[in-house]
């Protein structure tokens, strides 16, 4: 039969998520001791919608005095209420936060996408439900801590200072706050300066849940505010998620103090595809591994290793798939890849794109149009990259994939481990024995087999080497918020 190609086009019409049900105040203050209070600095900074460059709201800038106030409030709450009430009672409050979050899921999803640029599909289906799941999971542990660690009597640490990044603002707040509260600690949390809104909304929700004043305090600001929190003498523990550079600074600053710490830092994950893998599903996993959340994911599968015999097929299918990713308005329900979180981050990513091109690697970008206004980066693939290049060494934190080919298992394991990072890795093969061989030899905190970027509150998450230490989630995550004396 003759090949007949008809000209048919079927484009999806806009399907915008409504924002009418959401109220965002013009200005947000600091949440200290159960109340919103204006900062002693009298300064506010703007938060911008990265998809439109419009200012959404103004956020209070916390200074040294404000940090001190917040830590004092947390200490007072720890001494007077939170360490005194029964563990079951603590659990009751955390369950209440979880339920309220589920009830207000749509509101949180919309604000997360407006403020951070991530597609509403992801904030609706991933960020918010997972955040609620973390509160539910940890609420259940509150009164069972004695059974989590055999032959120990776990006790709370006291006041915990927590600093979170801008890539999963609400989810990271949940990862931090839920286990801290369940383990009987009080919290001072600082969200990232470009994405404070959902943390402040969470503060409102925590207040509405009737959590005693001062148990959770949320202070906003940039690096300087974080530094004040880290250096505050009355903080018992610092939990940080963010860049390796800042992680190193924190570690230096805490050296010689009795403060405990957990760090969840950068990554440059190897995603390894073998010849015998289910190729079409592997391609989907590659896409989810690197283009999920615009690649703003510390465990993103940013280094792709493909067995050379199937490299052509994988590249062809990957490019095909990239061209079906819908890039644009984060509020459209069909959008797969949203806006880059900030202008600064876009500049960083563009710097790496130039570096990759300068090194002479073949660059392919999704053939899609992106809006004129806002911060955008098309999904990008570099092929035939070498291990020695900047783009396969440094964390880009954007939708940029660096692909290399490999020939033997030993070779790919060596190359996968040949990085200062060790947060996550992915293995794609139809052969179970190969999976177990690799998972035991890859130096990564999480190794996914025939899937990628799967998260669950019951499963510990964390890194090796310069990707940090300590675990979040599961029983391992609890131990990071407890003193475990025999």
């Amino acid at each position, binding site marked *: 039969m003759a090949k007949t190609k008809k000209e048919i086009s079927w484009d999806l*019409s806009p399907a915008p998520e409504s924002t009418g049900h959401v109220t965002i105040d013009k200005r947000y203050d600091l949440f200290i001791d159960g109340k919103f209070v204006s900062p002693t600095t009298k300064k506010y900074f703007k938060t911008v919608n990265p998809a439109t460059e419009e200012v959404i709201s103004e956020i209070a800038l916390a200074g040294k005095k404000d940090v001190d106030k917040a830590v004092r409030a947390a200490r007072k709450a720890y001494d007077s209420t939170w360490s005194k009430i029964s563990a079951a009672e603590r659990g009751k409050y955390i369950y209440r936060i979880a339920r309220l979050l589920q009830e207000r899921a749509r509101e949180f999803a919309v604000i997360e996408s407006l403020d951070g640029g991530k597609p509403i599909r992801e904030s609706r289906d991933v960020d918010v439900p997972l955040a609620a799941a973390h509160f539910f999971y940890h609420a259940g542990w509150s009164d069972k801590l004695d059974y989590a660690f055999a032959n120990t009597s776990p006790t709370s640490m006291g006041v915990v200072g927590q600093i979170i990044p801008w890539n999963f603002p609400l989810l990271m707040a949940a990862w931090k706050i839920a286990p801290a509260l369940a383990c009987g600690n009080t919290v001072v949390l600082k969200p990232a300066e470009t994405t404070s809104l959902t943390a402040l909304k969470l503060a409102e929700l925590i207040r509405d849940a009737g959590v005693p004043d001062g148990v959770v305090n949320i202070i906003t600001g940039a690096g300087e505010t974080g530094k004040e929190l880290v250096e505050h003498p009355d903080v018992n523990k610092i939990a940080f998620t963010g860049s390796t550079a800042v992680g190193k600074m924190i570690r230096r600053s805490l050296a010689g103090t009795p403060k405990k710490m957990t760090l969840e830092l950068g990554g440059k994950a190897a995603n390894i595809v073998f010849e015998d893998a289910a*190729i079409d599903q592997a391609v989907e996993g590659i896409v989810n591994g690197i283009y999920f959340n615009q690649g703003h994911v510390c465990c993103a599968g940013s280094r792709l290793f493909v067995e050379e015999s199937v490299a052509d097929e994988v590249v062809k299918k990957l490019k095909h798939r990239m061209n079906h990713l819908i890039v644009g308005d984060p509020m459209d329900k069909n959008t797969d890849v949203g806006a880059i979180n900030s202008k600064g981050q876009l500049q960083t990513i563009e710097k790496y794109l130039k570096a990759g091109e300068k090194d002479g690697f073949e660059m392919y970008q999704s053939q899609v149009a992106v809006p004129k206004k806002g911060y955008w980066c098309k999904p990008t693939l570099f092929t035939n990259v070498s291990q020695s290049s900047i783009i396969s060494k440094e964390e880009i934190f954007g939708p940029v994939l660096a692909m290399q080919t490999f020939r033997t298992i030993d070779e790919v394991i060596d190359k996968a481990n040949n990085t200062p990072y060790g947060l996550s890795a992915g293995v794609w093969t139809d052969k179970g024995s190969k999976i177990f061989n690799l998972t035991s030899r890859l130096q990564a905190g999480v190794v996914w087999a025939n899937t990628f970027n799967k998260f669950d509150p019951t499963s510990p998450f964390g890194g090796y080497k310069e990707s940090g230490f300590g675990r979040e989630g599961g029983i391992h995550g609890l131990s990071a918020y407890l003193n475990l004396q025999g």
Partner: protein
Amino acid sequence: MAKSTFNLAAIRRKAIDQVGVEERCARFQTRSIKTDAKKQGLKMALNMIDLTTLEGKDTEGKVRQLCHKAAHLHQGFPDLPNVAAVCVYPTFVKLAKSLVADKGIKVASVATAFPSGQSFSKYKIEETKEAVSEGADEIDMVISRGRFHQGDYAYVFDEISAVKEACGKARLKVILETGELGNLDAVYFASQMAIAAGADFIKTSTGKIKPAATMPVTLVMLEAIRDHYHATGKMIGMKPAGGISNAKLALHYLIMVKEILGEEWLSNEWFRFGASSLANDLLKQLVKQETGIYQSANYFALD
């Protein structure tokens, strides 16, 4: 039959990961199809239907009614497209042909001891020839699943190619009956085999076995079609049949076709729905798009 030309070595058996397939399918179902895209999609889907009656109790009267419906989907909307084809048993081909040929609607006939396929190849070939000579534009054959499970792939392959030969100018749809194949690896393998043996279309199911068409099974078959297209540049059609009875699901199937194969597959030359009750739901949604109001089921003819 001539000596087998089946070459197992030429077909690379490929791993399919069911969990990954299901996740991908769930993703298609989050696509939100609104306003103009919805209207266009509904009309497209309507135009892709093989309106089907395959019952032991089928009569000339029943087939007449079906054929009239195929050309008169809704009195209130005369500019609606027709369905692609009517699909009947071989004994009704002549009648159906006389009723729909001038309406631009094709007549598809099942053949080859439908639905079980448990008969002798020579009768299956005879049946196919008979259906074509009665006027069938398309033949929907079933593969011999028993032989497939016995590992007798050459038999299955040769039978398909013999039926293809018997089809002459009629287009051949090869029904894999995926509900009996057991797993997605087998679905992919059977798809490759059917395509290599000369299928113009591959089709999921007879509609007599549950599960019939599902999104995961259809996705794997679409991937087989795409792999063949990448390797040879030749387009093969796809027909999920049975179990797709509402418009929303049909639209998500079309999204899947668009994202896996591309928009050039979005016509009834390359994609069909085997369905009997889908048409009315598509019509109901179309009326809703036009008028803003859902009409009761009583406004849509049951034939």
